[in-house]
């Protein structure tokens, strides 16, 4: 097992920046998820770590060893591809043995190690079948087995669940997580699905426009997004973001009315924008409490029942939609006026020009 360090790693295709200089340390045994919309450079980053793509600048260290220019086969890492890349002309057993044959292991070792991973992944019964005859889930298990059998220093997975059916995806997600806990293997996992990232990652690296936006635990990126992009991208729906005017402890929602900023935020806001100016108010749907005495007025726009809870969409003064999470028992008629309050500890503020979060000094 190993640590992976990226130091100012970048990738340019001609003039086009695929990955802007990127610094990241992945600790031994950590499960790091690279998350971002398609085309944000997350797969390119993964391919650079594997050596399948050459870097155009920076350094990659694997356990302190500089592997920036090492051949993929010399890096001792395993790669799981989105479309599995199983060799259709070989049986499952031959597929799994393939990496071991490259290392010139003896036949007995190969047989034993294949049997071990097959048992681990519950694919003993398909070892002599051809990959094309397997279900998507089993194909993915074979691809994982082929990666695991070598006991590599690190695993790289490029959207391994992307090609699976929704029902398989849930199961395989749990299996991969369980596998990671048992094997305690350093893993870098690429996905565009933020639910998957939240569920699996020890840490999430949110990427957009070839840049790292935020690195943090799932809780950090969810509750304390570093900028507007992360706030919008994480969560479903994303954070409610309302631009407005701040002055003397009051946030004025345009055309709507005032919202008294919680006292603990006032020093930070005063400092960030010199006491007065434009800010963006952000809050998660679960920060909203609808009540008759609520501070902010709105009208009900639509509601959808999600089984366990109801997502209430409110129109804020014919201006913009606010999503709120309410209990499943409550029912609201469309176009009825409501009022709501915000949980003061779950309110966040962003700078509208830099798009960065305004940070509050935490007093103990």
């Amino acid at each position, binding site marked *: 097992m190993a640590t992976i360090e990226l130091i100012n790693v970048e990738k340019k295709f001609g003039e086009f920046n695929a990955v802007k200089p990127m610094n990241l340390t992945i600790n031994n045994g950590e499960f790091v998820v690279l998350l971002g919309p398609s085309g944000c450079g997350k797969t390119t980053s993964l391919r650079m770590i*594997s*050596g*399948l793509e050459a870097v155009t600048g920076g350094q990659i260290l694997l356990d302190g060893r500089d592997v920036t220019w090492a*051949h*993929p*086969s010399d*890096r001792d*890492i*395993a*790669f799981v*591809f989105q*479309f599995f*890349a199983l*060799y*259709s*002309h070989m049986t499952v057993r031959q597929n799994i043995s*393939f*990496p071991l044959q*490259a*290392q010139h292991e003896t036949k007995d070792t190969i047989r034993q190690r294949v049997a071990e991973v097959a048992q681990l992944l519950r694919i003993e019964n398909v070892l002599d079948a051809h990959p094309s005859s397997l279900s998507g889930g089993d194909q993915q298990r074979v691809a994982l087995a*082929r990666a695991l059998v*070598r006991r590599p220093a690190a695993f*790289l997975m490029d959207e391994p669940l992307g090609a699976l059916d929704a029902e398989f995806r849930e199961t395989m997600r749990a299996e991969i997580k369980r596998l990671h806990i048992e094997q305690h293997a350093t893993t870098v996992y690429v996905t565009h699905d933020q639910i998957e990232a939240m569920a699996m990652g020890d840490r999430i690296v949110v990427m957009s426009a070839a840049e790292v936006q935020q690195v943090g635990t799932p809780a950090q990126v969810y509750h304390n997004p570093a900028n507007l992009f992360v706030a919008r991208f994480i969560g479903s729906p994303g954070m409610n973001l309302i631009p407005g005017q701040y002055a003397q402890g009051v946030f004025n929602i345009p055309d709507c009315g005032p919202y008294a900023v919680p006292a603990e935020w006032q020093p930070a806001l005063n400092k960030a924008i010199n006491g007065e100016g434009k800010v963006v108010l952000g809050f998660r749907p679960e920060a909203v409490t609808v009540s008759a005495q609520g501070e902010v007025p709105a009208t009900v726009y639509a509601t959808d029942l999600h089984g366990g809870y109801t997502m209430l969409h409110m129109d804020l003064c014919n201006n913009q939609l606010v999503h709120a999470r309410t209990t499943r028992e409550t029912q609201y008629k469309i176009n009825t006026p409501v009022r709501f309050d915000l949980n003061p500890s779950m309110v966040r503020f962003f700078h509208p020009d830099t798009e960065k979060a305004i940070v509050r000094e935490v007093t103990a």
Partner: protein
Amino acid sequence: MNIPLPDFWIAYFFLFWVLVGLTATPVVLRHKGYAGWLGALAGLGVGVIGGAVFMLLLVVLDPITDSLDRPFLGAVISILGGAAIILVLLNVLKNFVPVSGGGIQAVGGPRTPVAYSTRVDKVDPTWQAMQAVRASVVIMLAALTLIPVLWMSMTAFKSRADAVASPPKVIFEPTMEGFISLLTKRRQLNDEQIAEYEQRDDLAWYDEVMLERGQAIIGQSDYVKRLRNSLIIAGSSTILSVGLGLLAAYAFSRFNIPGEGDLLFFILSTRMLPPVVVTIPIFLMYREINLYDTYPGIILLYTAFNLSFSVWLLKGFIDEIPREYEEAALVDGYTRLQAFAKVVLPQAVTGIAATTVFSFIFAWNEYAFALMLTADNARTAPPSIPSVLGTGGIEWAAIAAGSLGFLIPVVLVTFALRRYLLRGVTFGAIRQG
């Protein structure tokens, strides 16, 4: 009755209708619930009657089409028209076949389980019967195109007299005379010598055969050597052009090569000139650098000609193999060459098979260059077959035997690779890279 067709075509169309009856009728009868043997028997009857009706229709239609004053067009119209009328008649008549009360259940139809197709339209008896008709058409067309090959094969086994008999003999006594005279040099014997030879008991069977023609075998003919040359030259140039083509196609497909499009076009442009145009310059060049009438010379030339084709064809196939296959092998600890050999080659086997067959047929078949650039040492079979023409009359049997022998390697190669070819020919589209 005067059927306005030559005898051969009467037999041909009659056979067609028997084939249609034999294949289509059992389908219909099975749906009506009759046993298989009954269907076959009825099919034979339907076929014979269908054939007879067809001839009758031709007689009827002939005066009408004669008014066109275009004999061939008229014949085609009456044949197609007659066939259409009979097919419509058969299609109508099948509805009058009573459903069998016997214990056999009807197969197919909306209320019965389907065992052989999941498409409802393919369960319909009309569809299946038409499928049989279509198959019959294909079989008869195939038979028509195979007749020359069959004729050649028959001539190869005919004696000299039978080969030139008129009218041609379809039934004859097979003899190896043609092959023997193709592969040997012989001497004409006079009566005394024949008598002397007949006394000897150390003669092999081929000596006996030729003795009947009054000839003694005195050695191997040149054709053996020509055929061996053809094998060596076509084989080597095929291996070379497919091997080099694979490497080039892989490089074009996987790496960013500066000026890739121009290079590919340049490679293709070697095909844009009829080869015959360059034979004289090549002849002069070859003579100068001592490649005239040598194996390397002609192999080089065929390889160069096939290479453009094989690069383009194989590039199309390799483009279709996802890069992930090799990348998986690369991270699994293999070098690029190993990944190529262990992963790309097995995946590209279809394309390799198709390219091999095309390259082999080109090199095997090539005539103009072989005629100009070889004399004796490296001469291949195609330009030498005409020279088998014997002294004192054309040895048709020997020529047919030579052509048959020439045909066999290509058939063998194609047959050995047929499994990959069907997909290869239809799906391996050449794409602009």
